[in-house]
């Protein structure tokens, strides 16, 4: 036998040891793992860090949080790489449920998107409705002397996230074709998370659609200096929901055998418990002077405060329910 052959056998053994060691460790020694695919806006604010610490303190489960945009979070879940998805894009959630990948949806929190922009507000959108504001931004973009693409006045997430789909729907509601707006020279697509996009908008002194949670964190840290120009209105509502990944998708049994459904449901019940709802509502109040998120479970039961509850129902309910019966899998107590 030649030297390289002997050495190659050693290498093969070493590789097997690394893989086998990992398998044994994660199957027999570590805590159960729950994979949560989530949107960057929940993660970048630090809320999930707090929830993770609180949950792991009382449960023998290791939360593995992978923060991506809603688009990729849903994709992860379809691949079977997530047990729970925490997202904020009702239209995407609806098709996720309809395709049979998600079950037991619960609306857990809401806040508002905001449009931020340069302090001197060259397009003059302050105090206007969102449709008027977008008209003004387009007019301002077209009036720019520099149409070389160097000056960009609108920065988009551009990553198929919940915030990005919100932006698309706002453009079409204002009467614009999103595809052609995205081609404009003054339109920039960051293709990154909320935090990174805010940084880009700040560098470019551009307008940008942001979720209020991430925005407030960055603004009060002094990381960005752009003020919020348009706040709470119905079309800027932002609703966060949680869904468990369906363990019994007929299309691909093999993938979903590994889905940790029991812990996923336990985590959902934890999220909607009054204590956790309080934690969500209180998060950041001390630091930022206002809530970054508001727990939605109790308001939906109490039907107050109005008009926000009816806005949530208009925007994020499917067939008059947060999760129509055909998309539920046990756990009837969630919906009483």
């Amino acid at each position, binding site marked *: 036998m030649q030297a390289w052959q002997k050495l190659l056998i050693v290498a093969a053994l070493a590789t097997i040891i690394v893989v086998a060691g990992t398998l044994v460790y994660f199957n027999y020694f570590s805590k159960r793992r729950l994979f949560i695919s989530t949107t960057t806006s929940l993660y970048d604010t630090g809320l999930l860090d707090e929830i993770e*610490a609180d949950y792991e303190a009382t449960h023998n489960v290791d939360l593995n949080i992978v923060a991506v945009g809603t688009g990729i979070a849903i994709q992860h879940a379809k*691949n079977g790489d997530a047990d729970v998805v925490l997202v904020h894009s009702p239209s995407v959630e609806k098709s996720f449920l309809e395709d049979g990948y998600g079950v037991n949806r619960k609306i857990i929190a809401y806040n508002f998107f905001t449009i931020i922009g340069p302090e001197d507000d060259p397009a003059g959108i302050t105090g206007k409705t969102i449709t008027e504001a977008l008209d003004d931004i387009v007019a301002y973009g077209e009036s720019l002397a520099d149409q070389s693409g160097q000056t960009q006045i609108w920065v988009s997430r551009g990553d198929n996230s919940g915030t990005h789909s919100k932006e698309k729907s706002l453009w079409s509601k204002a009467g614009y074709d999103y595809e052609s707006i995205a081609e404009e020279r003054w339109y920039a697509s960051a293709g990154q998370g909320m935090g990174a996009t805010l940084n880009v908008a700040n560098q470019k002194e551009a307008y940008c659609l942001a979720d209020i949670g991430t925005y407030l964190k960055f603004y009060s840290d002094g990381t960005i200096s752009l003020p919020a120009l348009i706040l709470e209105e119905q079309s800027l509502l932002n609703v966060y929901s949680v869904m468990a990944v369906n363990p019994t998708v007929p299309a691909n049994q093999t993938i979903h055998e590994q889905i940790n459904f029991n812990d996923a449901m336990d985590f959902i019940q934890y999220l909607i418990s009054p204590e956790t709802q309080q934690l969500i509502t209180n998060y950041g109040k001390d630091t930022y002077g206002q809530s970054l998120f508001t727990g939605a479970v109790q308001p939906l039961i109490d039907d107050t405060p109005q008009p926000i509850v009816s806005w949530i129902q208009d925007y994020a309910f499917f067939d008059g329910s947060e999760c129509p019966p055909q998309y539920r899998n046990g756990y009837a107590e969630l919906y009483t």
Partner: protein
Amino acid sequence: MVDILGGIAKAFELIVSGDPELYGIVSRSLLFSGTAVILAALWGTPLAMLIAFKDFRGKTVIKTFFSTLIGLPTVVLGLILFLIFSRGGPLGFLGLLYTPASIIIGQAILVTPILISIGVSAIESVDPEIMDLAKTLGASESQAQIAVLKEAINGILLSNIASFNRAIAELGVVLLVGGNIAGGGNRTDVLTTAISRYTQRGEIDFAIALGILLMIIIFAINLVVVIARKANYIVALVKSPFSKMKRSVRETER
């Protein structure tokens, strides 16, 4: 605006104070990339020997193939491995996605072309007489190959260091197959992914501190290379009996 100087000052405070979060990330980076390079060296060295010692058709094509792969973009490899390790992918049943093992294997694959390319040229540049001489002196084929390998130790060492540099500085593989998971008992965030996360979160001083530490690690390793190349050259000469003999043979010929 971002306060760069203030950020740097705070970063140094964090480094000096021995912040456990910071050094946890550094130690994970060193552990994952170090293991990856050791693993890759274990299979890369014999493969380099195979290519260098054997004469076969398509040898040039194979060598070109590996030297091209040195430039493989890390995100492309990350994407391929993500699809393979994903629970829906061919190796999904192993459950390796988002574990340290997937990072180690990914980085090991990433640096294998470096180890093979540099290794092959190091072995090939060893004087062929060494092999003949070893065999004349009664060494078996296998022992003779080891003798040549010892002569090439400088090049092999260089390839290992270059591999470690590439592994610890890459972002694509660790981000896509590691998942940059920051909490719990199974953390997979390392220097590069943590820098990206803290920058996105606006925690710039932490990101700067991590950046400084990453630069220090890479600088220290390159310093070691410079010293080792000088020192080891002598060590290699002393250690290998065949090169000594060859020299004495030459001298007597003269």
